[in-house]
């Protein structure tokens, strides 16, 4: 479904992504791991169009999307969440998701129809599936950090993506919130058949959730394999997993 080949990106001489390789098959849960500064977020930004790659290819369903702007990438069926909760702070929880649903329905440019009657059922359904239905009228900026992260996933779901990319979905969450979020991600993947690509620092979360793990180090892909193979891989142990145990 998604294929990243030999991707490069540098910022003022600093090479952030240095030959990344990634394959995501339909229906899979794929994790990207690597130490801080390994280029995970940059890789996601390259896939979803926030950044343009210097070299290399990003193909989605056979189409080269490496040079498309973010809104075009989204229209091809890739939605994402950001590392820092990226929501519409002044709008209600409901409207946060509704904006996204209306965008997918290509109704963002409708002028003379009251928005509060549009896409209500669909928005409610998404909010229900993530468990935010009791907070629909709250102002998004007033939610707890954990709820804001969940809301971000809900916004992404509003575009009805084929592939959902989550940048550290549980960063800053309590253990309970982390468990709930990972439960949600698993449910989305299992019941709705959503393909999910995420990166995460919590190794328990990664090895419990992902079906395929790609390890990045200094912007380079070391390996992409099943959790068992990754755990057994010597290079990975030296570069990353081992380092963590020493620390």
């Amino acid at each position, binding site marked *: 479904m998604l294929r990243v080949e030999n991707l490069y990106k540098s910022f003022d001489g600093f090479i952030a992504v240095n030959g990344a390789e990634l394959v995501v098959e339909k229906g899979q849960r794929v994790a990207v791991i690597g130490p801080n500064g390994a280029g995970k977020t940059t890789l996601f930004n390259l896939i*979803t169009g*926030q950044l343009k790659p210097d070299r290399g290819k990003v193909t989605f369903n056979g189409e080269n999307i490496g040079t498309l*702007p*973010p*809104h075009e990438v*989204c*229209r091809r069926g890739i*939605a*994402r969440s*950001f590392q820092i909760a*990226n*929501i*519409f*702070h*002044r*709008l*209600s929880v*409901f*409207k*946060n998701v*509704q*904006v*996204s649903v*209306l*965008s*997918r329905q290509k*109704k*963002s*440019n*409708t*002028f*003379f*129809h*009251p*928005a*509060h009657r*549009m896409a*209500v059922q669909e928005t409610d359904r998404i909010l229900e599936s993530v468990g935010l239905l009791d907070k*629909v*009228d709250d*102002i998004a900026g007033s939610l707890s950090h954990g709820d804001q992260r969940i809301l971000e996933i809900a*916004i*992404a779901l*509003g*575009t009805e993506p084929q592939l959902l990319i989550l940048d550290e979905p549980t960063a800053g969450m309590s253990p309970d919130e982390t468990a709930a979020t990972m439960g949600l991600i698993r449910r989305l993947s299992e019941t709705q058949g959503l393909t999910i690509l995420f990166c995460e620092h919590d190794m328990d979360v990664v090895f419990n959730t992902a079906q395929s793990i790609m390890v990045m180090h200094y912007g380079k892909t070391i390996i992409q394999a099943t959790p068992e193979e990754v755990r057994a891989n010597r290079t990975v142990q030296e570069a990353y997993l081992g380092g963590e145990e020493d620390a």
Partner: protein
Amino acid sequence: MRKNGSNTKTILFLAALAVVLLFLPSVLTRFYTYILSLIFVTALLAMSLNMVVGHGGLFQFHHCVFYGVGAYAFALMITKAGLPMWISFIVAPFVSALTGLIIGWLCVRLTKLYFGMLQISLGSLIWAIIFRWYSLTHGDDGIHGIPMPDLIASTTSAYYFIFLFFVLCLVVMYLIFKSPFGMTLQAMRDNPDRCAAVGINVRRHQLTAIVLATFFAGIAGVLFAVLERTVFPDLLFWVLSLEVFIMCLLGGWFTFAGPAVGAAITVALRTFVGIYTEYWTLVLGVLLILLIFFLPEGVMGFIYSKMESSGQRDAAGPRGV
């Protein structure tokens, strides 16, 4: 709030206000009728600016250019081209919107302060053209004595004419504010990157908002010319743009009606404090300082939050945004 559609109290209040405003000219002197008309014109200008600033989050620093272009286009079409007033009235706002399209098309390539800086430069360029092109615009002298049809020649009839278009524009702006377009625009103010990531073409959306806002600014400019029968380069000067920006802040730029309140306060200050001292802006300055400390969301923002805390939720309030 999505569950309560329209608030009966608000509608009753607005209806009462409209009735009062309709009868006021018969009891007021000509001067006060004129001041009220000027408030409507200025309020429309401030609200058009707020479409892009308060709801769109764009630093449209030099909005008066489009007000002035509308007024000048109207005046020139009548005095130079000899077109009938009604045709000029319809065409002039489109001239403003076209100017808005050209300037906006260049500006949306930039964001935040850079947007504002480019906007102010391009706007000043238009001011300079109108100021310098003496053979066409009479430069600093302006254009005086623009003939008006008898129907709207008196101050009272001009008042009703302006009031009618003010209300019409308000209704249309409110519909836009509440439409998916308006809601997406507000989402874009909060977070343009997130909007792009849910498939919205941010630049195009912003440009559409600019064109709409400049169109309404053009209508305000035309109404000004109807009222004053005079246009002059100060209409496009950046000082006025700043003043209108302050009106939005003063009234509450995250609300729909706030800028109109801000415009009323500013025009009233200019008129009534201006009688005693030419340094009326000093009073405005003090007011602004107090505002920043005590009412950071503006007058309307303050009223809405009071109404909300007393249990009354308003569909048009900032929390309903």
